């Protein structure tokens, strides 16, 4: 510190701290508009992150190019109201950790001057990252994190397109009710199993709340450490409690390990209703036929194409571009760039306040989204999409098939879950 005086050090330091606010917003229409995309591109969830990334890349390709699709901004190149400006994605790797999510959000805003941020898949990471964007006054549009608390914080700059776990959990209970009423399959006891980070614990909370509300008895309430090396003690507890139905919220690593341990120890409930890990593209290739009959919450399934041609068109484009089927993760992450770009286009500006105002006025009709929703409109208070709903898919012959709501089912639900020993 030889020639740096205390005063110059302090001045320099405060200038550095203030620098994000010293940058004046860009008013003239730029050639490209940068958006920050936060995902776990390395680390435990790298395969998931890659999957989300493909969804975003597909979306940006459609926005920037010219496609005959009913999606927002598809038919024109770039954003017409900003002189055809194209989107440029600034990728940021969260490594799946909340502290990196925050740091990366700050980096893309202060260094890359992005107009908005999307991501970050894991709710715990989205939580810290969106706190950073809130502080820096930059809009954040999330379509892939599902913890209910994210839209309960009263943030001004945070919007969520996709359904949250409260909605998903409620769907599972509606399914059980419909199952009893329409298919005469009665369920009395539940086993609630959830990983202990932001995502799982909140699902667990919702499950317990609805179990009470709907009058089910909770036979087992088990929270566990994620990325476990061994889950035999968890499954031992489940076998002892012997619930009719298992509700499981887990990321992919645990989903694989649990499936194998369920089979090995012979845990046979009447049904398994699961979330997240069980629908990731890495899950089925890893467990193969052992995944059959498990039911997963979803916002997307390829069989929606039967009732919604847009789904088939996008899925075909996706397969052509990446050589694999579009997964639920890719399909969820796919929507955020459209919502953000559509708002920027209407705002005719990349200035944060104008974008937020435009986001509040968002009204994308149902035929412009690839999910079975009535559209996208944000609740003025929570800024959660009021039309977001989920569906349930069941793994049948190693394919995800929509089975609920019963009226939009592609196939009948297989119930009860066939015992492991009776399977080939």
């Amino acid at each position, binding site marked *: 510190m030889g020639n740096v005086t205390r005063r110059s050090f302090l001045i320099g330091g405060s200038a550095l701290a203030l620098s994000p606010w010293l940058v004046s917003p860009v008013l003239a229409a730029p050639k490209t508009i940068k958006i920050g995309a936060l995902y776990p591109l390395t680390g435990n969830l790298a395969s998931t992150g890659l999957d989300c990334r493909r969804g975003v890349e597909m979306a940006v390709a459609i926005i920037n190019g010219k496609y005959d699709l009913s999606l927002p901004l598809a038919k024109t190149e770039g954003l017409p109201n900003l002189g055809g400006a194209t989107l440029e994605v600034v990728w940021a790797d969260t490594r799946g950790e909340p502290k990196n999510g925050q740091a990366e959000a700050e980096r893309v805003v202060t260094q890359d001057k992005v107009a908005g941020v999307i991501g970050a898949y894991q709710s715990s990471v989205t939580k810290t990252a969106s706190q950073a964007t809130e502080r820096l006054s930059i809009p954040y549009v999330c379509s892939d994190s599902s913890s209910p608390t994210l839209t309960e914080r009263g943030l001004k700059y945070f919007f969520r397109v996709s359904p949250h776990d409260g909605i998903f959990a409620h769907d599972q209970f509606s399914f059980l009710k419909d199952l009893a009423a329409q298919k005469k399959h009665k369920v009395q006891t539940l086993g609630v199993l959830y990983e202990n980070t932001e995502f799982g614990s909140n699902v667990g909370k919702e499950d317990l709340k609805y179990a009470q509300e709907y009058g089910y008895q909770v036979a087992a309430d088990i929270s566990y*450490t994620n990325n476990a090396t061994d889950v035999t*003690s968890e499954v031992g507890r489940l076998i002892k409690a012997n619930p009719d139905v298992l509700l499981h919220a887990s990321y992919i690593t645990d989903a694989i390990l649990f499936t194998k341990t369920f089979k090995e120890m012979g845990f046979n409930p009447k049904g398994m209703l699961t979330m997240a890990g069980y629908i990731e593209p*890495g899950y089925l290739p890893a467990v193969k036929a052992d995944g059959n009959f498990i039911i997963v919450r979803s916002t997307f399934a390829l069989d929606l194409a039967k009732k919604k041609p847009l789904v088939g068109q996008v899925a075909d484009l996706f397969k052509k571009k990446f050589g694999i089927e579009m997964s639920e993760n890719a399909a969820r992450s796919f929507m955020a760039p459209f919502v953000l770009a559509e708002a920027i286009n209407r705002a005719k500006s990349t200035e944060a306040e104008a974008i937020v105002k435009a986001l509040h006025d968002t009204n994308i009709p149902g035929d412009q989204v690839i999910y079975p929703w009535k559209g996208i409109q944000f609740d003025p208070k929570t800024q959660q999409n009021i039309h977001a709903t989920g569906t349930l898919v069941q793994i049948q012959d190693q394919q995800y098939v929509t089975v609920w709501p019963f009226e939009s089912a592609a196939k009948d639900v297989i119930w009860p879950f066939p015992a492991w020993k009776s399977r080939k």
Partner: protein
Amino acid sequence: MADQLLQQIVNSLLIGSVYALVAIGLTLIWGVMNVLNFAHGDFLMLGMFIAFWCYTLFKMDPLLSIPVCAALLFLLGVGVYRFIISKVMKGPGLAQLVVTFGVSIFLANLAVMLWTPDFRLIEKPLLAGTWSLGSVQLSIPKFVASVGSVVVSAAVFLFLKKTRTGKAILAVEMNRDAALLMGINTERINSLSFGIGSALVGIAGAFLSMYYYIYPQVGGLFGLISFCIVALGGFGSIEGAFIAGILIGLVQTLGGYFFDPAYKYALVFLVYLITVWIRPQGLMG
């Protein structure tokens, strides 16, 4: 109740013996050259991937690819020692820690680059399925992996106690300078120990690949637990690592079953902390 108790004890032994084999490799390296290999978990990951590729490309069952995993990991261990560790051994202790940490990050990212972050499983291992012994469900691959781990651990123990080379390794572990004076080539013993320690974790990888999913970050928690086992058993003690491995398996599984699964790893580290508090040198140190 009693049924599940027996089942849980069996499960603890199954996982504990594999933990023990992973930890023995680590403790051997530590004992001989006082280097804590942070890349140990990643070596395990490489062992698993080697078994996976042998299965996928050459239709070799993990049981048959054990020698391949052992040999390749031995070479890797010797290579890492010769080209990296021996260079920093002359520097400060912190440099050795940091360099193995660097190797760890390098290997995990290399695996992502080469093989993508996807999850793999060996679909149809030669030995699959479950035996029902009364109320206890015994997974065959886990049983084989566990018995195999015990056999390999015993073989290492005998090798160290009975053979000339083994005795030389123990001599270096006891007193490097005295061993040098007795005419033992300590440099050769170092690279041999690093090779054997790595080969052991490679074998553990082959065993684990029979039932565990394989991906670039799979070594993380296994590595962390093996550090805990090595410290619990006493740095450098093979017997200690074996006993501690079984103990950790018991604490993790029974603790998870009777107490709360959310805290089972916390319990593991709590047992470690208490032991170190009472016996800082570890159980057998």
